[in-house]
């Protein structure tokens, strides 16, 4: 197998069989969703021939199902398609904002949440937003379907937990109740079209008095992978998510981070800015949960 090939299977079974056949023949199978990362990598980084297996023709990866209790987002649905769905934007504003931050309008016409997750960049914008929402990956493989939380799926810089022959079908998210809301923000040195220096996703649940009863805080671009930060959540639960609680959560984010210095920012800067982002994002999630 020294030539490029392209296949677009119509079913999960056919996809898995194709992956198996290519690998058994000593070839390299490369799964593709929107292709906005992959095509650039194939042109600039690694030009090795391979069989491209396009997942965009599967019913499962194209499924968007907003149920009574939970929502399923197919792995290959583009950011543009998702952000055109007003109900989805209203239900998960933080996640959809994160998807709306990936690249340009053009990139969003192709780029998917599933691809952003599988690409597993430390700075991937949707990953902290997914983790904050407690999203679960639905994975298909030879032994059937398995599930794992997003925070376990991303295992290293550009490394995910998929085994050879497995594919990500989509993400399951529990729908928010009336007093639960999410938010995501990132910091970049310009106003658009850049890669996160730091990013923070938060999902909060408040009770009738406005006291936080549950929280999930996730940080991105300040460690090899996006992280769930339980200590930051602990700083919010039981509080009114006031300035003091947000400052404590921010400090917990700083403590949980292990950033590098690169051309976008120094490690010291990232440790500081992640606390600021946590405070801002926590206040947005709180106000959304209060219906403010």
């Amino acid at each position, binding site marked *: 197998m020294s*030539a*490029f*090939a*392209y296949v*677009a299977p119509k079913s999960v079974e056919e996809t898995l069989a194709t992956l198996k056949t290519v690998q058994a023949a000593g070839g390299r199978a490369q799964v593709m969703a*929107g*292709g*906005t990362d992959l*095509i*650039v990598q*194939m*042109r*600039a980084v690694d030009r090795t*021939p391979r069989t*491209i297996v*396009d997942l*965009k023709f599967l019913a499962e990866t194209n499924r968007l199902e907003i149920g009574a209790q939970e929502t399923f987002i197919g792995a290959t649905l*583009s950011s*543009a398609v998702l952000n055109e769905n007003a109900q989805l934007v209203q239900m998960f504003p933080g996640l959809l904002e994160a998807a709306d931050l990936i*690249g*340009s*309008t*053009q*990139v969003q*016409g*192709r780029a998917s949440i599933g691809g952003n997750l599988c690409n597993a960049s430390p700075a991937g914008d949707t990953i902290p937003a997914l983790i904050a929402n407690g999203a679960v990956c639905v994975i298909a493989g030879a032994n059937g379907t398995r599930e794992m939380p997003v925070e376990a799926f991303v295992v290293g810089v550009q490394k995910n937990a998929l085994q050879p022959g497995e594919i990500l079908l989509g993400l399951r998210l529990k729908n928010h109740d009336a007093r639960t809301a999410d938010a995501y923000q990132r910091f970049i040195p310009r*106003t*658009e*079209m850049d890669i996160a220096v730091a990013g923070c996703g938060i999902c909060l649940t408040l009770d009738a008095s406005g006291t936080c009863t549950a929280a999930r805080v996730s940080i991105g671009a300040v460690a090899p992978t996006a992280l769930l930060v339980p200590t930051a959540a602990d700083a919010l639960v039981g509080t009114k998510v006031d300035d003091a609680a947000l400052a404590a959560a921010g400090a917990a984010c700083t403590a949980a981070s292990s950033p590098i210095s690169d051309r976008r920012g120094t490690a010291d800067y990232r440790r500081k800015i992640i606390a600021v982002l946590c405070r801002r994002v926590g206040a947005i999630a709180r106000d959304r949960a209060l219906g403010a």
Partner: protein
Amino acid sequence: MQKVQVETRINGETVEFLCEPQQTLLEVLRDTLGKTGTKEGCGSGDCGACSILLDGRLVCACLMLAVEASGHNVTTIEGIAGKDGLHPIQQKFLEHAALQCGICTPGLVVATKALLDKHPNPDEETIRYWLAGNLCRCTGYDKIIRAVQDAAATLAYPA
């Protein structure tokens, strides 16, 4: 190299072509089909010079494989003008001198078409964010924004 046969629709016409699996749609548009209005700037999805519409949605032709166009509707800059002359967006780019070297212009016109199809009356912030993926090294953007605003007004209230 085994070539793949692809059937697609480009600017309303059925088009068949042969391509290699790893070729981008941009390469095929320009080098195989001779539609050189779509420009290559960066080849990595940063500059927007190769903007096209795929089923009405704005995408970079350099960020998709030509085989992925199979069964879809592609609109390139060649499909923007009507048979009676320039599209109002193109006319307004001319009138406002919203171009100098012209390399970014086809992409900006296509991106503006997608914008005004979706948001017929965009405010300046919406225009600037929507067009953030189209880089122009000549104009400083202001003339482009004025042209887009004027095009929106013209399309909403044709003379």
